[in-house]
């Protein structure tokens, strides 16, 4: 990394070039598990967004203090701390959300994307770029989950954000149930990855197929 920091590139990388789900293909398990509805995907994305920003900030602040030999346990502990804080705060102040998401929040500790950004970026960069990177990556993750959620919920339930959209004769139509089951999650993921690669190749002259700026 050079000394000059281009925030625009970091943000673009996080959301498009190295989108955690569609490009880096990290943290696919939670991406499949929670995106049976737009709402769940969005809420999970918000939690990850917060955790990633905080973790990147903390790791960046402590980067000179953490001995490289024990960096992974240190990062894991920092991640676990922020996830616990998120969990406790949500349990107290966002009860309705917590009832649906509670099970998944603790899983953020094991998300590969959080650890990988701490290791790849925050441990080598100053505070502000690290925060921007965490936020951009978190935003990329959030957007990917929302996209998957829209795709799956619309086909699998005929609704968006719990609102029934596909109706005939006043009754909900019978949707493609498989899309909200785990199987459908993999279908949706593969299709969206393919589309995004196709769009990238067709309109932006990219190589399509992973790998962003570096």
């Amino acid at each position, binding site marked *: 990394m050079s000394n000059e920091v281009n925030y625009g590139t970091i943000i673009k990388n996080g959301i498009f070039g190295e989108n955690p789900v569609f490009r880096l293909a990290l943290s696919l398990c939670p991406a499949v598990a929670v995106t049976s509805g737009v709402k769940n995907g969005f809420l999970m994305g918000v939690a990850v967004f917060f955790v990633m920003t905080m973790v990147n900030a903390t790791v960046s602040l402590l980067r000179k203090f953490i*001995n490289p030999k024990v960096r992974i346990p240190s990062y894991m502990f920092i991640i676990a701390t922020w996830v616990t*804080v998120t969990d*406790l705060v949500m349990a107290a102040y966002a009860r309705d959300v917590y009832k649906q998401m509670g099970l998944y929040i603790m899983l953020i500790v094991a998300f590969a994307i959080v650890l990988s950004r701490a290791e790849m970026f925050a441990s080598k960069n100053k505070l502000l770029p690290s925060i921007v990177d965490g936020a951009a990556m978190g935003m990329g993750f959030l957007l990917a989950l929302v996209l998957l959620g829209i795709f799956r919920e619309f086909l699998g339930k005929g609704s968006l954000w719990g609102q029934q959209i596909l109706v005939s004769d006043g009754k909900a139509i019978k949707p493609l149930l498989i899309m909200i089951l785990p199987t459908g999650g993999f279908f949706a993921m593969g299709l969206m990855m393919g589309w995004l690669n196709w769009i990238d190749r067709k309109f932006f002259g990219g190589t399509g197929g992973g790998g962003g700026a570096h």
Partner: protein
Amino acid sequence: MKDMLKITLGLVAIFIAAGLVMGVTYKYTSPVRFIAEKKEKEEALKAMAPDATDPIKPAGNWSSSHGKPYEYYMATSSGKPVAYISSTAGKGYSSYIAMLVSMDTDLKIKDVKILHHGETPGLGDQVEDRILFLDQFKGKALSQLVLLKTETKENIQAISGATISSRAVTNGVKDAVQTLVDKYGAGVRTAAQEVAK
């Protein structure tokens, strides 16, 4: 050797700092959480017995065949019992389906409410989403709580594609009703006989 000490001390410092952050967060969020949880429970109980004027008090504990503890409550209106409520759960396809069951003084079911579950979306979660399924329980007595796969008005009809979850709900409700019949059945029977006289 000196290096090792430095690494260890560094890790310990991080752990202590993390512990402090979590502890402080817990200190400030746990009272809010506790109050919210208590309020939610009271509201759920109240919704199960809307005609009770007195606060609903726990009347005892029981444990089901799968060994989990549950509570039952008596709802009273100016001292006279109007409804019995029990928490219960049934073992479904991928989770325990936690429920509240309310019964009238004849120990017939008034209402069944699913609190939380982790059944398959689209299949098992229909026990909660399809109101017609839970409505079947209303007015049923203990002996009628049998799950059938055919059309029935007397018993409980399973949701096709969600038989295991349907059975879990039926069994959980049955456990709760059975417990309260064992506890209060005699009293109910005497009361009924007195009315008959």
